[in-house]
């Protein structure tokens, strides 16, 4: 982005919804539309006509919108690897660490859409990612795919379109206003950056507590 254009862009950049002010947004010259770019662990919901874009390796993204009002968004996450939780008594149960983490990633996205006028019965869902990157031994992508499919089945949310698995990363562009999603397979030459980013995300996930706070009121 050229510096001299920055202020002009921010003059007309549609206001992000509360909670999404920190998401990287810019003017997309190719599509002539504002775009929000999310990275692993982030999600973004908009009521405006803008694109949401991300690059997926073994991570998955759910693109969800209320098709009647055009409010929607995208998340980008992977499940925490299980090595740290081997001693966890709840491992391999319906409430293991991975399931709890993934559940909240999905619920945050859906809640934000519902909070801005979306209705559960109008939700249109598309899912992408979960590739198997050759440099990574475990098939993390497969676990992410299995999770997101099970989650949507349990929630009774039908998958309208999907592009999952494969041995390549993807660039994803989603237009919540229309529901259109574009996927571009990325060439091997890009894999190195994506691979490094994923490795660092895997490391981060090992150290974040998969638990929110508990606060007791009064006595």
């Amino acid at each position: 982005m050229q510096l001299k254009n920055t202020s002009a862009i921010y003059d007309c950049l549609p206001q992000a919804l509360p909670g999404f002010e920190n998401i990287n947004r810019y003017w997309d010259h190719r599509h002539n539309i504002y775009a929000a770019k999310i990275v692993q662990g982030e999600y973004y919901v908009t009521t405006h006509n803008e694109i949401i874009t991300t690059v997926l390796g073994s991570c998955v993204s759910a693109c969800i919108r209320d098709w009647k009002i055009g409010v929607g968004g995208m998340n980008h996450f992977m499940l925490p690897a299980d090595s740290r939780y081997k001693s966890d008594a709840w491992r391999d149960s319906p409430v293991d660490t991975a399931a709890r983490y993934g559940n909240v990633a999905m619920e945050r996205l859906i809640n934000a859409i519902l909070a801005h006028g979306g209705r559960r019965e109008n939700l249109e869902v598309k899912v992408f990612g979960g590739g198997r990157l050759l440099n990574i031994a475990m098939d993390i992508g497969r676990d992410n795919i299995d999770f997101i499919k099970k989650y949507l089945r349990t929630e009774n949310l039908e998958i309208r379109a999907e592009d999952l698995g494969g041995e390549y990363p993807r660039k994803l562009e989603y237009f919540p206003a229309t529901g259109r999603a574009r996927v571009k397979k990325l060439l091997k030459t890009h894999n190195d950056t994506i691979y490094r980013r994923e490795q660092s995300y895997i490391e981060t996930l090992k150290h974040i507590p998969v638990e929110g706070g508990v606060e007791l009121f009064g006595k």
Partner: protein
Amino acid sequence: MEPGGADRKKIKILLVDDSASMREMVGFTLKSGGYEVSQATDGVEALAFARAHQVNLVITDINMPNMDGFSLIRELRKLPNYKYIPIRTLTTEDSADKKQQGQQAGATGWIVKPFDPEHLLQTVKRVL
């Protein structure tokens, strides 16, 4: 309350969440702890259940269609049988503002998702 499985079996918990997977996860955890769990998908359903049944604890989500967690808690507090029982929220919301709203509505505790199953059971055990 005596410790031990026999008595804990009788302890009833009403679990309110619009997400089926969340009900499955929390329900599984509570049942593993030996509690009897009833489920509702929103505030309206929960309130109808509460008018007909007594429970010992309510665990409710906040963001739900038809009737949200705040309204549900306020309505439950109007019922004589639900005036003093513990009501815990279980939500992705963690702002001070929402917590205060919850407390004003009559919640006795605020749990932020993702929940830790072990800690959830501990906090439940502590109130009952």
